[in-house]
């Protein structure tokens, strides 16, 4: 006989805790660069553009699978984790992505926001938001458009 107000079982409780923790994204700042700023030509209007690509830590995912399984399945997940870790070995910024050209259209996109074509104070920011083994790999460019007519 089960009580209606009984607490969730331990694995379910842990799953809920992990889900809650994983749903809160952790921000990561990898690199930033600031350019020259010209405030002598006219009024400045802020412009900003960012692109986001799905990053996946597959070895981390396999590690979670290993933790959640038992016996032979756990050993298989461990083997997969080790192979994935070896494949993705080496220096990198953030999690691996499946398309490395996702940031190529940044300049064209930011120029569209600036009809005068005069951009200044550009800040290039490489950052990420991690949700466990999944992350958003973000490239952001902020800056100012010089409105010389004003």
């Amino acid at each position: 006989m089960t009580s209606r107000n009984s607490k969730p079982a331990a694995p379910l409780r842990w799953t809920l805790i992990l889900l809650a923790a994983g749903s809160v994204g952790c921000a990561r700042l990898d690199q930033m660069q600031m350019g020259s700023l010209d405030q002598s030509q006219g009024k400045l209007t802020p412009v900003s553009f960012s692109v986001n690509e799905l990053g996946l830590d597959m070895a981390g995912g396999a590690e979670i699978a290993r933790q959640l399984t038992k016996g032979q399945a756990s050993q298989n997940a461990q083997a997969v984790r080790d192979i994935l870790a070896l494949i993705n070995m080496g220096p990198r910024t953030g999690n691996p992505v499946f398309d490395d050209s996702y940031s190529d259209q940044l300049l064209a996109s930011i120029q569209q926001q600036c009809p005068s074509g005069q951009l200044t104070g550009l800040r290039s920011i490489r950052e990420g938001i991690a949700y466990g083994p999944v992350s958003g790999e973000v490239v952001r460019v902020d800056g100012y458009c010089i409105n010389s007519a004003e």
Partner: protein
Amino acid sequence: MKVWITLCLLALLSGCVSLNSVSMTQVPAQRSNQVTTSADHWSLLGIAFSNDFVDEAMTGLQQQCQGGKLEGVYTKYQNTLYLLILQREVIVSGYCNRS
């Protein structure tokens, strides 16, 4: 024993710095007016939810060079770890010229 504890405490409190990125733009010939600003963010175990502190650095520079041209911008992004507390810091300097 006390000496070792003191040494360990000093080592932990002094902080370990890692330099993440450095960049520099073209430097002007006239370099008489240097302006510097910094912005930082403190977090427990490095858990942060936004990177908005970066924008504060640009605002600081803008205010110090009103109506002028800021060139030779040197940007440094570094992390300092004080045991469990992480300080993320952006330090920016440049030369402001008002012609």
